């Protein structure tokens, strides 16, 4: 380890990082978890959900896209930032139609897990109850737009890992949504059951068919340990 390193502070803790790293990557390696939804290992940073908002020398930045810098002071777990994160999670809940009690993603859902981690029991913002559809045209994969949080993880996975361009964003503002690369819907694309894209959806929006309850509720990813535990357990010292 003769590489050049930079040192910076996160919530009073000193962290060493490689200069090309983002704040989030460096914190992950140091076992400091910064909540996130759109950021995902192996995918290029996107910076859309803003859950990873931190303050860098007093200025708000997304930890997933902001590079580290020598001596920067990062605030992450402050009351102000946590409140902003809760508000953003709340926004994502009321923007779509998320019914955890009968969603097959419950327990494996990062949105739900993040709400629990941040101590949200019910959104404080009013539900919007948008009218959204489902694309079940494909034999093995389906899209439920009710649960989409527009994180672009399917779009990026399809492009960067699956080597396809099965998905893309259309519309703008509140009308923005994920579309498929075919006017015939998902069945018209080259999306396939072997694709990683559905596996990388943080919520129950892009799903493989016929395996919804293969793992029973209670035995799922976030049923025992909160989201982010894997990173926090990586703490070496």
């Amino acid at each position, binding site marked *: 380890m003769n590489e050049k390193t930079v040192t910076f502070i996160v919530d009073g803790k000193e962290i060493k990082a490689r200069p090309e790293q983002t704040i989030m990557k460096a914190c992950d390696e140091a076992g400091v978890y910064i909540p996130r939804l759109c950021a995902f290992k192996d995918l290029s940073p996107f910076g*859309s959900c*803003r859950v990873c908002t931190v303050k860098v020398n007093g200025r708000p930045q997304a930890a997933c896209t902001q590079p580290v810098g020598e001596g920067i002071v990062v605030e992450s777990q402050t009351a102000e930032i946590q409140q902003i994160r809760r508000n*953003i999670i709340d926004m994502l809940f*009321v*923007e779509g139609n998320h019914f955890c009690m009968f969603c097959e993603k419950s327990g494996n859902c990062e949105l739900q897990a993040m709400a629990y981690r941040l101590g949200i029991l019910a959104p404080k913002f009013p539900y919007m109850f948008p009218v959204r559809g489902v694309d079940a045209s494909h034999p093995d994969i389906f899209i439920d737009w009710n649960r989409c949080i527009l994180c672009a993880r399917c779009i990026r996975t399809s492009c960067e890992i699956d080597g396809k*361009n099965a998905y893309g964003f259309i519309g703008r503002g509140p009308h923005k949504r994920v579309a498929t690369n075919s006017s015939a819907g998902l069945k018209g694309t080259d999306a396939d059951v072997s694709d990683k894209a559905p596996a990388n959806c943080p919520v129950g929006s892009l799903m493989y068919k016929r395996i919804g309850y293969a793992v029973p509720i209670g035995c799922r990813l976030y049923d025992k340990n909160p989201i982010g535990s894997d990173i926090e357990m990586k703490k070496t010292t």
Partner: protein
Amino acid sequence: MTAYNETIVKDICRRFGNERSRMMDVVKEVQTSFGHVPNEAMDAIARALSCPRVEVQSLVSFYAFLTERPKGNIIIRLCDDVIDRMQGFDRIADAFKEELGIGIGETTTDGKITLEATPCIGMCDQAPAALINDVIVTNLTKDAAREIVAGLREHGDPQRLVKRLGDGNNAHELVRAMVVNNVRRKGDVIFGEGKPSDGLKNALAMSPVEVIRAVKTSRLRGRGGAGFPTGIKWEFTRAAKDETRYVICNADEGEPGTFKDRVILTEKADLLFEGMTIAGYAIGAQAGILYLRAEYVYLRPYLEHALAERRKSGLLGNKILGHAGFNYDIRIQMGAGAYICGEETSLISSAEGFRGDPKTRPPFPAQKGYMGHPSAVNNVETLCCVTRILERGAGWYAQMGSNGTSGTKLLSVSGDCKIPGVYEIPFGITLKEFLAMAGAEDAAAVQVGGPSGQMVGPAEFNRIICYDDLATGGAIMVFGPQRDLLWVVSRFMEFFVEESCGYCTPCRVGNVLLRRKIEEVRAGKCDPAAIAYLEDLGQTVKIASRCGLGQTSANPVLTTLKNFRPLYTARMKENEAGMQMTFDISAAVRDAEIIAGRKSANF
């Protein structure tokens, strides 16, 4: 308009070299041919430009002036910003609806005319105004609306609706617009006297580094609103390691209430192009792009003509003014109706042929901008200042204005004032002094800098117009004592909801929630706890949003909460019974009533 024909699409793509980056132009041409961008055309464009089809749909569905569905050959877009609404939008809209027999967002049954509403088209000083295809009509009345519809029915040619031409170059044979300039006060910089090309000649006699030094010495700061020092921006761009660099002029003047760039483009196009050329020389660029908002397309033929004249005179092209090694040209990139594209990285995305999503920073445009190359993005007015600085000297420029802010500023004034229009004022005067100039002494509130700026009341009128105090990109909207400011706030929030690109959560969702709460406050359905709710929500949008649009979109709410709080509290009542005041039982059972097929017996 022709029926769909793939050969036409292929030809259009070929004309733009089958370049993926020219998708904006391709799609616009396709729409011109078929009236919309049909489904099959998207597939054909994707094939020709070698990109996924969803990228074509992504672009078309993003811009307000592009459409996937057929519309009328003639599209009437009524400007519905706050100022137009204050000056009779509803009356005019009713007249159009009545004459056409349709509502807003609809097309006449014969398929010929579509009626729409659109945010500020940059004509607030001659409101109410509308765009009819590419033609601008101003100072509308009910009678004018009826005449317009009759004319369109008779001859179908929007240009023939222009009966009287405006002043200056508005009457130029390549413009022929009824728009007027309303230049009320000329300063020494933009409207000052000067000799054409002197600035460029002086610049070429210096080294590029010396030009940048002169701009730094002048203390010129960006006139679009953010106020970044221009010389430093250029220095960064020049320092970035690359062979290719770009100058981009941001003429996507979309901030409601701003129209000063429209006047510059009309009357001072050469001053601007000269500034763009000086910028190109300074940073070492080979090309410049003028990104022009779709609403100003009526100026395009004139601007293209001005560019052609400059090429003829050796002011653009190879070896400019005989200067070996300085080869530089400018092209115009049209926008397609998206306020977000005024944000510099969105503008770059758009010019590259994508939806106008802002880009992640870093890298900044000065490092990696248009097509991944270092790019200096400057406002129209900023580049005009550059020409004068090189023409008359950095010292001359720097001594104008206030201590912290040098030079002059163009302000676009509209609303409840006697003399709306464009004023070139030296930085450092108070808002009060300025309001007196514009005949707005009895203003009850002034929106400085447009919806993304701040709403100030008389207690703040002694503040100074400069970057260190009351900063503004140029919009001054005046509201008299008769206006309902919470209505204004609600209109501004509506604007941000529609214009958010939707990339990040706080802006996409937060603005919808802010608008909703403001409506509840206006309807008297809130208790005083709503103030904390609005502040908390507004701060989240401001702090967590990804780009300047989101970071300023809560300002209408936050600045009125600060400066006009009694307007809020006056509409709130203590919730003594502990009821959920916003709950509307009849609305809640409405869907159930529809399913049941009868009215609720109780509610």
